[in-house]
């Protein structure tokens, strides 16, 4: 796990090393163990290393036997052992024991098609000097980030946007269309990022830059085909368990100790249980506990730890810890967020680092791949009800939704029916499952300034996302469609980035995600939706497959998604009346006017409500976090951007 950066200038224009040093210096947190460069005429590659595999020998950028192919690589190739053996049989000579070198030789063997053989999480750049060709690739699901920009000076890329923003010709300005996407879907839609002129390579895509010609090409995409290879439950259960065990086994490959997150939920407990089943005697686990009982899951964490016999350590997070850390969190997310939930994960990775660990396994991806989210359940109930809108019985099922949210559970049946009411036109929408979420999020646009609203008059975020749907989308069943929307957008754009890679790498921690092994993902895509969510029992097959390997109470508990306190986190002293100073400064009328994105009057009223501790609804909480994080982005990346760190 590491950070990468690079430049390809016009032919005959030499790369200046100081600029490359500044670029990689911005992501020192991703790789504090070593820095390396490869400069050759108009090409420069840089690497910040977090050494995990072949600690002594895996320095980068790395080259092939005759130094014609160079790589800078962030990530892990978990099947590198098997790939290496094959390549040696084919005559390749290896200088190191690292997974990085495997990619180099595989590229020599197969060119850009090499990515199909890789099982892992990666963002890499290969400079092929014989063909004068730059090849960049990002893993299938978007675990590792990769950004790029085309500037008058040339092509620049990096693991994080901040590396690109030190390049003088890369603009530092907010892209309002991206803001509008974020204030609809919670994420920007790649290649767009929140910064004008900076693009994100979408998951499962590669870039080829050859003689000034840039091509962005998909090499893998999510697909759903439950009828193909239709599996009976027993076969599916055994198949899933076998694959998950292997996904965990190869993710334990490291030359440093590997720990695990233990949230108290099903997924992370399953992963920890599989680690133990594979024979690991000592497993260190880490978790976050909240002072606020509404969010706290520590009793389940302790139960899981005791049951599995792990060496467990937790960090207790208060609302104020979140408020204090928030600006630094946004420096790492590099985009606005609508929830504070990344902040506790930032504090958790700090704990892990302090304990001397660099690698953790986590349960991310299970909800998307195996059908765990409430949004899937909500869509199922709404569609079931919409068939007979006058039914008195069907809407009673709405009580089964969001059992952990007291604001919803305290509502009368009449209100629940009104909230989840299905409009006639929604039933035919390709976005049926996500319309309530996106509609509600769009209400935050009431805070836009006139300039923002005017600039967006001809933009339609819904049209943009519709244009990105794969051609086969219409052939998938409704459950698969909603799974796709989560796995293609929220997963890489928020869960794996703002809550994942960025929070872990802020403290030089690598996350590994067995549920996102592409073999597990492809296997799950062939499962019938009924095996994923049996009636309203989420992740049914996973629970059946894991059986008594985890405590029954965790297997049977209501799913509680990971959440954290929002608006109350910004109250200084934890009491109504006073907000953290930076919140007052960034949301003051002058700062709002200078930022240009929002209306100072409207934000002033939101600020007053926050100050008085009167923010209750989900919409207002998201508005405060969304507006504030946008202002932090403007402050840290535009107004006060450091030229170097």
């Amino acid at each position, binding site marked *: 796990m590491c950070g990468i950066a690079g430049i390809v200038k016009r032919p005959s224009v030499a790369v200046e090393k100081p600029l490359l040093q500044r670029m990689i210096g911005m992501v020192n947190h991703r790789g504090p163990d070593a820095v390396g460069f490869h400069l050759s005429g108009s090409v420069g590659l840089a690497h910040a290393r977090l050494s995990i595999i072949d600690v002594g020998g895996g320095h980068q950028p790395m080259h092939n036997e005759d130094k014609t192919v160079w790589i800078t690589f962030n990530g892990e190739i978990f099947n590198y052992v098997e790939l290496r053996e094959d390549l040696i049989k084919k005559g390749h000579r290896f200088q190191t024991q690292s997974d990085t070198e495997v990619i180099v030789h595989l590229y020599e063997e197969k060119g850009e098609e090499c990515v199909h053989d890789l099982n892992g999480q990666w963002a890499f750049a290969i400079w092929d000097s014989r063909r004068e060709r730059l090849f960049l690739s990002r893993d299938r699901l978007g675990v590792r980030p990769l950004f790029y920009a085309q500037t008058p000076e040339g092509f620049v890329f990096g693991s994080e946007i901040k590396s690109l923003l030190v390049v003088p010709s890369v603009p530092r300005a907010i892209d309002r269309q991206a803001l509008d996407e974020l204030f609809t879907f919670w994420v920007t839609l790649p290649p767009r990022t929140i910064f004008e002129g900076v693009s994100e390579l979408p998951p499962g895509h590669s870039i080829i830059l050859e003689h000034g010609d840039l091509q962005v090409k998909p090499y893998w995409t999510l697909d759903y085909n439950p009828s193909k290879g239709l599996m009976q439950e027993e076969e599916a259960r055994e198949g899933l368990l076998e694959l998950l065990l292997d996904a965990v086994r190869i993710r334990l490959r490291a030359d440093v100790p590997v720990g695990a997150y233990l949230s108290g939920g099903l997924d992370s407990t399953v992963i920890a249980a599989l680690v133990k089943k594979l024979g690991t005697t000592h497993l260190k686990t880490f978790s976050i506990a909240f002072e606020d009982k509404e969010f706290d899951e520590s009793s389940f964490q302790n139960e899981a730890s005791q049951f599995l016999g792990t060496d467990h350590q937790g960090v207790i997070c208060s609302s104020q810890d979140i408020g204090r850390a928030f600006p630094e969190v946004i420096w790492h997310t590099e985009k606005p967020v609508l929830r504070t939930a990344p902040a506790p994960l930032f504090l958790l990775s700090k704990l892990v680092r302090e304990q001397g660990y660099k690698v953790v396994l986590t349960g991310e991806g299970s909800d998307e791949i195996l059908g765990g989210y409430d949004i899937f359940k909500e869509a199922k109930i709404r569609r079931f009800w919409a068939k007979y809108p006058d039914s008195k019985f069907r809407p009673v099922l709405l009580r089964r939704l969001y059992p952990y*949210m007291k*604001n*919803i559970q*305290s*509502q*009368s049946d*009449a*209100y629940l029916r*009104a*909230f989840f*009411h299905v409009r006639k036109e929604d039933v035919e929408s390709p976005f049926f499952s996500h319309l309530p979420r996106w*509609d*509600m999020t*769009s*209400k935050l646009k*009431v*805070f836009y300034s006139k300039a923002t609203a005017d600039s967006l008059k001809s933009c339609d975020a819904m049209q943009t996302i519709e244009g990105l749907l794969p051609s086969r989308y219409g052939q998938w069943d409704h459950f698969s469609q909603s799974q796709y929307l989560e796995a293609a957008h929220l997963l890489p754009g928020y869960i794996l980035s703002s809550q994942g890679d960025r929070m872990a790498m802020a403290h030089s921690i690598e996350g590994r995600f067995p549920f996102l092994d592409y073999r597990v993902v492809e296997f799950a895509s062939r499962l019938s939706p009924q095996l994923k969510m049996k009636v309203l029992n989420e992740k049914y097959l996973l629970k059946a497959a894991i059986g008594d390997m985890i405590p029954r109470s965790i297997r049977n508990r209501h799913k509680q998604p990971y959440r954290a306190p929002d608006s109350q986190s910004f109250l200084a002293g934890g009491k109504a009346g006073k907000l953290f100073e930076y919140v007052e400064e960034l949301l003051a009328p002058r700062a709002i006017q200078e930022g240009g994105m929002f*209306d100072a*009057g*409207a*934000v002033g*009223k*939101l600020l007053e*409500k926050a100050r008085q501790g*009167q923010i*209750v*609804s*989900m*919409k*207002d909480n998201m508005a405060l976090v969304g507006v504030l994080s946008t202002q932090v982005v403007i402050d840290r990346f535009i107004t006060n951007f450091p030229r170097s760190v």
Partner: protein
Amino acid sequence: MSSIETELRKYILDKLLFGRTEVALSGDASFLESGIIDSTGVLELVSFLEEQFQVKVEDEDLIPANLDSINAIVRYVEKKRK
């Protein structure tokens, strides 16, 4: 306009619409349908009614017919005060 309606409109404009007057607010417009409140915002509205108009909103009164538009709330508060 009754004083209840005046106070209510002021509250909605200030606290729920954040002063954005371009959002038209007719007496019968549904708060839920127009997105003025979301599934978690009803409790905030109830707190305001209880404090401002000195009424107790009983659990069985927590239904859209009483609380989902300006006209509905005015009718409800007037009835409660009698």
